[in-house]
């Protein structure tokens, strides 16, 4: 597979592993804010070869993890409405709200279809004219343009039984807020590869300027990850924080203007609740009035309930990287992948799920 296999080549990976082992001279405490990075790091066993002095903290990079319980409850309520068929990315299926998940709603008869693309949801709308097909929108900047484009296609083709419940969020603002927390002591940021394809590597310059963070944009293959960690270690050692783009095959400094315009056309920034972090200003995206016809909240007159967080759940701390899963009193006791308390355990990329699957220590 071109543009993938080369970055898995053992001839490349082996020397990088050796180099990583020697790359740390000053302690590196880095945060990654991309669920796909979380998975890739665990799956490749990178944590088992991390050199002394390098620590990786998983931040709020999983859009499913940061979907609030209130939003999940609203999703489930929508799925249980008569005449409604809900379409979702697979990641959402087992996420718990205050009272069960979409999986459980499905077992009670709610019409829920798992799709790969929002365009598949549009097909489902075409094939089920008697249902109002709602796409539950979760995702960061990588995904939002796709949902926006789908709304435009729905409009153009007059597909009236289709709408989107947007809980889409943006990364840079919330990340900056996070960086201001004095308990969070990180000196490096592994920047999300595909979010950066949209927003550009330049989006991280403020993190260098305001917080002196070393920043590297990296991809997801073994060579990308290892190289990214090495460069972060070097930046810290040299005390020369800057933004380095190690993923130029996908990411440019300016980003993807066409995708950014698409999002600007359909969505506008709003305050939005992030699980564990509360309501963050202008951190979410709502569908503009111009496209109200495709806004599920308006079409179906949904109110978002005030749901509290599950008692004892430390997902909020875990998302900030202040607590690691084994430190949560519920981890692997009351909270397991089969019986998740919070989204960090349910999402296939959630910090706790990844720890449970791949990183259990004796």
């Amino acid at each position, binding site marked *: *597979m*071109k*543009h*993938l296999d*080369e*970055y898995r080549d053992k001839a*490349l990976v*082996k*020397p*990088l592993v*050796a*180099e990583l082992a020697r790359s740390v001279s000053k302690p590196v405490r880095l945060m990654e804010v*991309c*669920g*796909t990075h979380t998975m890739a790091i665990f799956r490749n066993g990178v944590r088992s070869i991390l050199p002394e002095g390098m620590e990786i903290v998983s931040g709020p*990079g*999983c*859009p*499913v993890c940061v979907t609030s319980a209130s939003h999940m409850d609203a999703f489930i309520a929508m799925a249980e409405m008569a005449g409604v068929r809900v379409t979702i*990315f697979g990641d959402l299926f087992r996420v718990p709200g205050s009272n069960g998940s979409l999986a459980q709603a499905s077992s009670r008869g709610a019409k829920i279809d798992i799709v*790969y*693309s*929002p*365009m*598949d949801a549009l097909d489902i709308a075409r094939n089920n004219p008697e249902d109002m097909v709602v796409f539950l929108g979760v*995702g*960061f900047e*990588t*995904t939002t*343009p*796709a949902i*926006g*484009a789908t709304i*435009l*296609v729905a409009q*153009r083709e007059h597909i009236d039984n289709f709408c989107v419940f947007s809980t889409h969020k943006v990364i840079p603002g919330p990340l900056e807020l996070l960086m201001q927390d004095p308990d969070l002591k990180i000196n490096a940021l592994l920047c*999300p*590869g*595909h*979010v950066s*394809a*949209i927003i550009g590597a330049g989006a991280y310059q403020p993190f260098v300027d305001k917080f002196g963070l070393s920043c590297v944009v990296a991809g997801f293959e073994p*060579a*990308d990850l290892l*190289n990214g960690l*090495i*460069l972060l270690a070097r930046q810290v050692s040299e005390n020369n924080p800057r933004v380095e783009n*190690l*993923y*130029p*095959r*996908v990411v*440019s400094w300016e980003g*993807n*203007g*066409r*995708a950014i315009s*698409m999002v600007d056309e359909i969505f506008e920034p709003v305050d939005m609740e992030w699980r564990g972090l509360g309501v963050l200003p202008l951190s979410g995206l709502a569908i503009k009035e111009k496209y109200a016809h495709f806004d599920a909240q308006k079409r179906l007159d949904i109110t978002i309930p005030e749901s509290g967080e599950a008692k004892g759940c430390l997902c909020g701390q875990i998302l900030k990287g202040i607590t690691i899963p084994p430190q949560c009193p519920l981890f692997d006791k009351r909270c397991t992948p089969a019986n998740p308390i919070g989204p960090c355990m349910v999402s296939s*990329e959630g910090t706790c799920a990844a720890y449970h699957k791949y990183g259990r220590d004796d």
Partner: protein
Amino acid sequence: MCLAIPMKVEKVEGNPDDFTQNQIATVNMNGIGKQVRLDVVDRWPEVGDYVIVHAGFAIHSLVEEEAKKNIELIRELASHMPEEMLIAGDD
């Protein structure tokens, strides 16, 4: 969050400025074919190009030079190894 993979473009329909028509590429990876949307891709691809595909949409067209630059960047770092470490690394 961003599961996205490079796939090779075999066919392109539509044009970048005309949103009244479908903007679609037929792409392939190892014999698996899909139709992906081009509504939000940064650079209009040509047949033979690779696009990064996420949730059925191309979010980026790979440029050969950038791809080459990337692999060389990494190879450069990997090649700066003292001789004895390379030998020691062999199984």
